[in-house]
């Protein structure tokens, strides 16, 4: 892959769609102001969160060091709970496993999952002639736009309310007051209600998994996860191997720190799912498939994560809770939104992309040089991830493979000439 071509393409999106877009700037200003205020309030109201975050760093370090054992334990626990489990080495394998479970001609409702964005699961299932609906409001907007998430938690963070109103009119035929966010939310609610009740399959990710009990914890506010994982007959969860910790107590601590740094004092819902629905109400005969799903399938995916875990320079990227806090502190992200990103977003996303979504390191070369190494993301990060340090390590790999963007090449040549003078 030609790095100069990658740079040109990236630059066009970054500047034209990101930095020069008035709507992106308006939306980012609103989101950043709101996030910083809310997260500060949440941390002041629950000051013990900061101590818990330090503990979570320890939990993540321990868990990543033992990920193989923990994934095996989690699979055994889920199977004991009558769930089926799978291990996918690649994105392709994960999609194929899920594709076989879903089949074709089905209606699928999805909860927000960056991991499924990583594998392009929605698009894969659509190719199998399924109707797939993103049900997180932000993801739904992204689906209408045929775009990709612009934030780890708030996928449509770059879309102001006025543009959302236009999208709803165009795609679902709902005319709403562009200044009234409540009307917009109500319109999407009306549209998706019917999809939830008729869906054959619900798909989710998970914020964290407890290996000991075989329990996934999913944080949400909208209630779409409860519906997507509760109403259809089949629930499929796609989870990265880095999500597994040992105990339920540890999992809850990870979850609490995640939502607190995601700026929630307390989220609307915290879902704990360990298996398909069951009842023992008739003669204590355990019967699977009560009111909720009859089947639970848990797909664990590696897709470059084990390589990250084995590399001391990048292992800490796997500690990421995906709270998205770092992005709201990034001076570049403030003007570009997720256009600073390949598939994942921002500095931490660039490291993730280098291992998971990039077929060739050249694909993330200009992104690696977009980070200004200011380390404010580290100040905010609950688990103290040093993205700037990883970025320097990634740049070293790019230099060694002769994959630096043209500006950096020019800088280097200029330095050499200066030395020769």
């Amino acid at each position, binding site marked *: 892959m030609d790095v100069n071509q990658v740079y040109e393409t990236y*630059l066009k999106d*970054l*500047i034209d769609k990101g*930095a*020069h877009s008035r709507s992106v*700037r308006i939306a980012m*200003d609103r989101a950043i102001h709101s996030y*910083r*205020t809310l*997260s*500060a*309030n949440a*941390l*002041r109201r629950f000051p013990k969160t*900061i101590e818990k975050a330090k503990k979570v760093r320890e939990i993540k370090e321990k868990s990543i060091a033992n990920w193989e054992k923990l994934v095996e334990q989690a699979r055994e626990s889920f199977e004991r709970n009558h769930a089926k489990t799978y291990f996918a080495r690649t994105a392709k394998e994960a999609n194929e496993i899920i594709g076989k479970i879903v089949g074709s001609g089905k209606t699928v409702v999805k909860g927000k999952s960056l991991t499924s964005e990583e594998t392009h699961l929605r698009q894969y299932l659509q190719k199998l002639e399924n109707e797939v609906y993103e049900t997180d409001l932000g993801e739904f907007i992204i689906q209408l736009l045929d775009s990709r998430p612009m934030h780890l938690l708030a996928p449509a963070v770059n879309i102001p309310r006025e543009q959302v109103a236009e999208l709803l009119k165009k795609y679902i035929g709902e005319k709403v007051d562009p200044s009234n966010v409540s009307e917009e939310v109500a319109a999407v609610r009306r549209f998706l209600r019917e999809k939830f009740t008729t869906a054959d399959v619900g798909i989710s990710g998970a914020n964290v998994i407890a290996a000991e009990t075989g329990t996934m914890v999913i944080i949400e506010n909208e209630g779409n996860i409860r519906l997507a994982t509760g109403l259809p007959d089949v629930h499929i969860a796609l989870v990265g191997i880095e999500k597994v910790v040992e105990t339920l107590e540890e999992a809850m601590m990870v979850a609490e720190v995640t939502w607190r740094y995601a700026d929630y004092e307390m989220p609307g819902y915290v879902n704990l799912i360990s298996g398909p629905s069951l009842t023992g109400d008739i003669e204590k005969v355990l019967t699977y498939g009560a009111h909720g799903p009859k089947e639970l399938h848990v797909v664990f995916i590696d897709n470059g994560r084990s390589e990250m875990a084995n590399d001391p320079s990048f292992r800490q990227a796997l500690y990421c809770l995906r709270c998205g806090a770092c992005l709201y*502190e990034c*001076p*570049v992200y*403030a*003007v*570009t939104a997720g256009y600073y990103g390949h598939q994942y977003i921002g500095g931490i996303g660039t490291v993730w992309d280098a291992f998971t979504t990039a077929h060739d390191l050249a694909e993330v070369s*200009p992104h690696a*040089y*977009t980070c*200004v*190494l*200011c*380390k*404010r993301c580290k*100040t*905010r990060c609950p688990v103290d991830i040093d993205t700037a340090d990883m970025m*320097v390590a*990634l*740049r*070293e*790999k*790019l*230099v*060694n493979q002769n994959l*630096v*963007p043209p*500006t*950096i090449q020019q*800088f*280097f040549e200029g*330095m050499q000439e*200066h*030395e020769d003078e």
Partner: protein
Amino acid sequence: MKKVLYYGSSNLQYQQMAEVDEGIRELFAKAGVEYVVPPLEKHCVEGLYTFGYKEEARKEAIQFYEMVKDLDVEAVVTPYGASQYMWETTYPDEFGLKLPFPFYNVTQFFHKILMNEDVKFEPLPLKLVLHDGCTVGRKMGIYKEPRELLGKIPGLTLLDLPHPSVGIEGTTAADWSTCPGSWLNITIPELAEEVEMNFVQKDVMPLEADAITTDCANALFGIRMGIMKGNFPLKAYFFTDIINMVWRA
């Protein structure tokens, strides 16, 4: 301290901030501190290192080390936070090179000299925002020195860049200070001016100040670019410029 190595002069010239260079030299003269500049135009290698050219950085770091290690100076003083961080941390940790001097940001150095009761500053009726450089503040924790010195100036209203999380877990304004993105002028020039302008517009202008100052020369470059791009009614001074205005030695 009688004699120091002043590092950063050629870089300031390169960044078209010659007056900052002159200001620093003027302050040395007022303080009666003799200074030398590096005998050759060798750089601190921060650019090479952080851009991923680790081996080239190592070679040049050795050259820099050889060039300055035997100089008859008591300390190294610089307006560039990143350079100081390189010598203090990266040189020993990555390259095994430990230079035999202490290193000071200009704020630290002049704080040592001027922070005593005998030194009086003239009044300066100015509403001034203090920007903490990323490396100076966040990475090296230099916080009190610029504030104490500027706090000595009669009539000066000193403002920090606001952030809702200042104070949480003992963090200071320096921990949350925004980077104006000066490095982008090299890596992605098309993006640099947007980030620089956004910083001035969103972080600084709401404070309705007369001027902004910073303790990192690289940040000053970005801030000035942002002011120029946005045509904002704001002056940008380097920290030593402010001290020069009020100290008549």
